[in-house]
Each structure stands twice: as C-alpha cells, then as structure tokens.
C-alpha cells in the first residue's frame, strides 16, 4: 500500500502490454481524458522530433521512439500555448462586450520523457500553488493525461541526473518502461489507474509487478545512462537551501559578467525550456473588435523588464542571465523545494552562443561551498554582494 503521486492512496497497479498494442493504450487514455480529447505524441518531421496531434493512434510505433532521445521543442506548449487568447472584445466603451474563449480540448500527452513530465509538476508549483492559480493552465492541466516513457538512451545534452532525476523517474500519470517487445506500465496517479482500468476493460492484461522494478534497475544500470555532457558528475540537489546569506553570495558572484559575455540576449533558452512560464499580455485591436492575448516571454530578452517610461531594472545581460539561472537553481527551490531545471538539456543544446547551465551550476556550487567553509572556519561571511554586473 503506497500513495500515488497525486496523493491518492492506492494499491500498486501495473500492466504488461505488447508494444504493438500502443494504439490501445492511447485510446484508453483518450477515453479517460474525455470524448473530445486530442492525442499528442512525438513525430519525426524534417529530421527533428516534434510534438504533433495524432489522429490515428494505431500508426504509433514505440520502436521508432527508441531513435528519439527527446523532442527539439518541449511539450509545455500543449498545456501552456505560446499564444493564448485571454478574452476578445467587441464595440467601444460604454457599449463594449467581452467574450472568453471556450476551455481547450482535453489532451493526452503520450511519449513524454521523465524530464518533461516532471517539468509539468514544476509548472504546477509555479502556476497552481497559492492564492491565485492560473485559470487557463489549471483548466488544461486538470483534463490532461500524461503518459511517460522511460528513456532507453541518453544524448550528450541530457542532464537529468545532475538535476536529481533519472531516465526512469516516476512521473506523469502513467510510466511506461519499454522492455523489448513489451511495454511495462505503472500507474502513478488516479488518472493512471483509470487508464489501466480502461485498458483492462477492453482486454485482459497481465500485471507487470516486479518486472517494473527489474526493468527500472536494468535501465538505470545500462551503459550511457550517465549524463555525458558538461553536467557529468554534478549534483545540483546539493545546492544549499537558499538562506539569505548564500543567496547574496551567489547574487554577488563576480563570475556572472564573464559567464554572460557570449550571451546574445535572445529568448531561445526560455522558449525551448519545459519549465519556463513567463508571459506577456498584449492587446490586438482590429477596428472596434480585438482580443487580449498572452504570449510566452523570456527574461533573457532585452525588453523583458522595460517598464512604461523606459526604466529597466535589468539593463545588463549579465543581470538577466543571473536572474534566469538563480531562478532555475535557487529561487524556485526556496519557494517550492524543487529545482526549476529538470535537465532536459534543450537550452544547452540550442543556445546559439554555446552557453551551458551546468557552467553556472558549477559556479554556484563552488560559491555555496565557499560560504559553508567560511561558516565552518568561522571567518566573516562574504557580506554585501558586489556591484551589479553592468
């Protein structure tokens, strides 16, 4: 007797499905998600893997996914679209009519990698926790079913282990462990349970039971399962809880300037990131009609913080980059106890200037150790941070 990821008490529920029955799994998930649900899965187009709506689940072949480490763009847009209408209007004050768009169709996201599945947990923390949950995201999220596929291979870009995760981290509503010709399923939430139940309702399916743990062991031990990139051997969970002193020390590190030198102030890192969720609200008038949309934004862009009147609290790119990395590795953790980076590696792979979050992490770990040592050796704390890098 354990508790599910969503806290619901449950008996461990697993299943063993032949991999050519993936379509059935998909349809079961669709049934759970609702009548008008849309199925999303990775598909290869123009040499890249991308998330696309799938109309014929039976064409899905998990074997092809083995060639995919991960999609180039994260799946966050499925539940948090880059462009989302908040409301539309018609007429002019005083005679103005507002109209709120209908809720999105429920989504089944099939084939998530653990790093991306965990990323939705992070988005939940950022957008749903607290007094003012993000209504639009909440609606999409509550009706979505997440089916995670454990990774059978890693690329030089992968950093999940540095981020405290693994290629088999239980995440999403249902975890799938590919094992040869069969898919070992493990329900992780009530939704996952429902999917398995639905599946069993259609045809008898054996329990996977201990096979799941065995396969997880196997995958974890398998070669090439240790982040080979710059992040190799790093463990960001060792970053200390963000006590003011440490944060000030990290904030004041002189290294930011040098680290940021190559940065070109584009927004790529945030736009490919599965957990970045900053947005901008803008109006799009068309005569007497129009709409208010929210669109992805990035703290790396030069005008991100520019206020009406032109003031910009973060004019230097070093300041913007510090904000980004500290938010990923320190600030969010202080608020919600978890790293805002799941180690998917997209930013590092995509950065046109070859910047790497692991470089920043290394710097932060060093700074933290310094603080710790100073504390031990009883000598004075670093005190006030240095001047902002300009």
């Amino acid at each position: 007797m354990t508790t599910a990821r969503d806290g619901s008490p449950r008996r461990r529920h697993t299943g063993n499905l032949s991999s050519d029955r993936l379509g059935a799994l998909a349809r079961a998930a669709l049934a759970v998600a609702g009548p008008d649900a849309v199925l999303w899965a990775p598909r290869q187009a123009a040499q890249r893997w991308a998330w696309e709506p799938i109309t014929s689940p039976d064409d899905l072949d998990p074997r092809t996914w083995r060639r995919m480490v991960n999609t180039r763009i994260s799946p966050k847009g499925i539940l948090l679209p880059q462009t989302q209408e908040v409301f539309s209007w018609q007429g002019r004050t005083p005679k103005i009519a507002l109209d709120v768009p209908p809720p999105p169709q429920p989504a089944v996201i099939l084939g998530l990698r653990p790093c991306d599945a965990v990323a939705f947990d992070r988005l939940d923390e950022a957008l749903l926790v607290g007094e003012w949950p993000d209504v639009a995201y909440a609606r999409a999220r509550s009706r979505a079913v997440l089916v995670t596929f454990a990774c059978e291979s890693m690329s030089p870009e992968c950093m999940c282990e540095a981020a405290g995760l693994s290629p088999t981290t239980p995440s999403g509503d249902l975890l799938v462990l590919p094992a040869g010709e069969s898919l070992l399923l493990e329900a992780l939430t009530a939704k996952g349970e429902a999917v398995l139940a639905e599946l069993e309702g259609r045809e008898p399916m054996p329990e996977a039971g201990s096979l799941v743990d065995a396969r997880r062991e196997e995958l974890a031990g398998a070669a090439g399962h240790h982040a080979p990139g710059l992040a190799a051997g790093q463990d960001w969970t060792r970053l200390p809880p963000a006590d003011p002193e440490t944060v000030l020390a990290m904030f004041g590190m002189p290294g930011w300037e040098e680290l940021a030198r190559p940065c070109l102030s584009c927004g790529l890192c945030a736009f490919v990131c599965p957990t970045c969720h900053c947005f901008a609200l803008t109006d799009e008038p068309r005569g007497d009609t129009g709409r208010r949309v929210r669109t992805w934004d990035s703290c790396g862009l030069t005008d991100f913080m520019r206020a009406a009147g032109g003031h910009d609290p973060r004019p230097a790119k070093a300041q913007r980059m510090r904000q980004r990395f500290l938010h990923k590795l320190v600030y969010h953790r202080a608020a919600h106890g978890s790293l805002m980076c799941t180690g998917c590696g997209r930013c590092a792979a995509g950065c046109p200037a070859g910047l790497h979050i692991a470089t920043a992490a290394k710097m932060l770990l060093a700074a933290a150790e310094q603080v710790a040592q100073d504390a031990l050796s009883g000598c004075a704390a670093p005190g006030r941070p240095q001047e902002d890098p300009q």
Partner: protein
Amino acid sequence: MPDAGQPVGYPAEVLRDLQQLVRDCARSLLEQGEVGMVIGHRAAAPYGRGVPAFVTEPGEAGQLMVGPQCQVGIGKYLLDQTRATRGRVAVIGRGCDILAARRLIADNRVAPDQVLLLWVPCAGRAVPEAMAKGGAVARHCLQCDVRLPEPGQDGIEIIGAHLAGALASASLVGEGCLEATAPRIAPAGPGADNAGDAGYERWSGWFEHCLRCYACRATCPACNCDICVLESRSPQWVERSTALPQQFMFHFIRAMDVAGRCVNCGECERACPAGIPLMDLQQLVAADITELFGVERPHVPGEHEPLGIFDARDPDPERPARTSGGGALS
C-alpha cells in the same frame, strides 16, 4: 577537447598547425599590448563544439581552437566588446566572421580603428545535430566563397595562408550528413515548383514552428540595431501572437531589412530551434540583387548597400522584367 567528433574528411594535422598559429598570434598580440582582447573559439561540452572565447590574458591563448566544431559566429561580439574593452579588440575568425565584422564597420556600429581582423582559412563548419555522428557541414558552407582568405584587404591580416590550399582540398561533407547539407528549398518564382501556393504552403509549414525567440536576429550580424523594429509597440508591425500572418510579417521584415546586407554567415539558420531554412530566403534575395542590380557578391559589405544606391538603368517594373520571378505583372 572533450568528446570532439572530428568530421570526416578534415585534414587533422593541418588544423593542428593552424590552431598553433592562431594561439601564438593571439598570445603575442596580447603580450605586446596590440589589443586588449582576442575573440576566438574554445572547446566546450556538449560535443566539444567551439564556443566564443574572449581572451584577455596571454596565458589564456592556449585555449583557442580552430576547425569545423567552431559553430558559433564571433564577428558580432565586436558590438559589445569594443565598447567594454580597453584597447583594440581582435577577431580571429573565418571568412564569415570577418564579413560579419566588416558588416558592423560598414554599418557604422564599430570603428575600424577599434578592431583588428585576423582571417583564418576554413573548411566549413559542422551542423550541431550531426556532430555526434562525426559532423556534417552546414548547407550554406557549401556555397561559401570566403573559406580561403582574400589577401590585400586593408585592416585584415591573414593567418595560415600557406595552409589554405590543404584545407581547400578538404572534403566538406562528413559521415551521414547528406540530408543535413541538401538544399531544402529551390528558387521560387513563376514556374518553380514552390512558386505560388506550393511555396506558400512550404513556408507556412516552417513558420508555424517559429517560436519568435529572436535567435535569428540575435545572431545576425546585419541585425545590429540597438532597438529592434520587430519588438516596437508603436508603430507595431508585428504582434506578439504567433499566428501565421504575424510570422510571415516577422520574417518578411527581417529578410527585407537584411536584404543586400546579409553576409551569408548562416548564423540565423544555425541558431533557429525550429530548423527554419532561413538561409534559403537570404540566398534567393542575394541572387535577385545580383540579377536585378548587377551587384556581384552582395554578401561582401561594400561602400554602399545595394538598396542605398540606384542606377538610372535599373530594370523597370513597368516593362517586363529581365527574367522570370521579378518585375511587375503587366
């Protein structure tokens, strides 16, 4: 260099010699105080790809590298570094880096006396995804005409001229990279397969995936305005929403504004996370500029921008254009 995938067909020993020359040159420049900074490449994970190196101490010159892994264009960094550095700034780069620097100079953004340009021969640069497979050369490198330094240009010095020949003969395409190097779009225009609806569908397909992350603009040496019209709210030419018309406007404005100013470095396409073949557009426009206005090698910054001058004998839209593709419908 960590897990560097040396692309097939590169003469490793030539690159090694070239690299030594580059390091020595940078070291002596810094030692003699000729420059305050040398911008070049150094190896970094993943793939051991070459990322920008900003060397200010003679001792650091040893980290400089050359070769196909040097993906990141470094010319544009002069914009920041000439302002941030005491003394001149040297760029040790390939033809495209040099052209990028010349673009900034031509655009009045960098003073010629603030920079020192050192041109290193190049055998093309690798495609990120293909690095693991042993590297493929970026498409536009196949059409590149500045791989080998052009002597006799003032303000530009050449490193390793004697090695250029060896690199010139180097095969440009690595293992399993043909698809990466194949041109994706054929020239449009009446008759061409992607003219009209087909072309529109094709570009719509690409633009649908555009994230508006501005990486193309951020890396483009011709996009060097301090404040960009693409983010302007008044007048607002492009709205933030990623609807298709906005995407077309975004890419039309960018293509038009760099028309005749693009240095053919391919940075936009390399940087694009959606893999949009942006260089196709630029190369089509460059060909048009040559055809319509007789400007040879429009990617080489000259005294005038092709759109900043005119010739009374330019083709006239009222008369049928010289060839298909251009001119007004009459």
